[in-house]
């Protein structure tokens, strides 16, 4: 196993951790953090797999896609945070309503 696969597995771990936190946490800020961790896991898998070129220069196409993804992630995060603030201003809670209590 090379270092590329080590990092790819860490990426899979980050994705799973983020998915778990996304499900179990009720607070929306925590859900946004969890989504960011999941995204970073995907980026790590992409860049790690681009490193499988041996001694040669790594594949530049996944690098470019990840740079694009980082900028898209930050703008989506900003939009999600604004939605959360609006929800909290309207309802007083930064959480989604719990289905089971209704």
């Amino acid at each position, binding site marked *: 196993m090379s270092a590329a696969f080590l990092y790819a597995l860490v990426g899979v771990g980050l994705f799973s951790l983020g998915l778990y936190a996304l499900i179990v946490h009720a607070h929306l800020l925590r859900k946004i953090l969890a989504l960011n961790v999941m995204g970073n896991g995907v*980026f790590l898998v992409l860049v790690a797999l681009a490193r499988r070129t041996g001694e040669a220069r790594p594949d530049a*196409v996944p690098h470019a896609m990840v740079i694009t993804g980082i900028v898209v992630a930050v*703008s989506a*995060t*900003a939009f999600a945070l604004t939605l959360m603030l609006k929800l909290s201003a309207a309802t007083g809670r930064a959480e989604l309503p719990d289905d089971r209590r209704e």
Partner: protein
Amino acid sequence: MEAVILLQWTFDTFLGLGLLWLAWRALACPDLFRAIVLFVAFGLLLAMAWVSLDAPDVALAEAAIGAGLTGALLLAALARLRSSETNVEVAGQPEKKGLKVRNPQWLPVVVLLPVAAGLGYVVLSLPPDAVGLSAQVAANLETGGVSNPVTAVLLNFRGYDTLLEMVVLLLALLGVWSLGGAALRREDAPGLVLDTLSRLLAPVLILVAGYLLWVGAHAPGGAFQAGSVLGAAGVLLLLAGWRLHAGLAALPLRLALVAGSGIFLAMAVFTLLMEGQLLKYPPAQAGILILVLETAATVSIGVTLAALFLGGRPPNKQDHR
């Protein structure tokens, strides 16, 4: 040589474990403020992982955006959340409700373990050597206009990705603006340190952005990294109490916001008419065309990121009526 390889392996292993541990702490820590600080530390560690994976372009973008701007956005949102929550009568709730868990915790673990195991199996079953598209990139680099392969992919070979991404940035800002006016922050004067530091740092950051933009043609750097450094300069100035002059908030601000996508679109139509293919530059002029596109994109990315941090739409002259 053996020792170097062993050292590299130790470093990679500890970095990977550190990433997983920091992510876990950021997601499980009861206090939201600490969680965000841990997430910023996670971003910085991730930037080191990019360097270790020979992706310096990604590392630059991560250090400026993933660790810097995302952290600033999250902290600003948390501050606004706290102030709105204390205004609306929920102050009596326990402080640690950020950790409130909804379901029995074993159920998601049981569901997610096979998912994680399956993903891990798929990753490990991939061939250990794969050059991907690097041969095509290397073969076409001569006609690409720039010698940094990542910049060539971003602005030339897959320029439509970047074109659409500029539009995504603009859409995110439109979404934020359409959700309401400028959220007014506390207007107390910044401390002496912040005030002096921001005056000293803002010109340096602009200079760094210009350098990254220029050097991106042949070394790690480029429009995204330069734009995010520019955005960071904007965030620093906004934190120190600087606001855009009301005369500039109407048309000039909007022109700066759409410059990237506008010039990109114009270039796309132009190349479609001249060369018959979307964003296919004539090889002789490719370098200068890419520099023009990158400059416009840098300005737009920087201004958009700073505007996203500010939150609402800055007030126009007309709004003061």
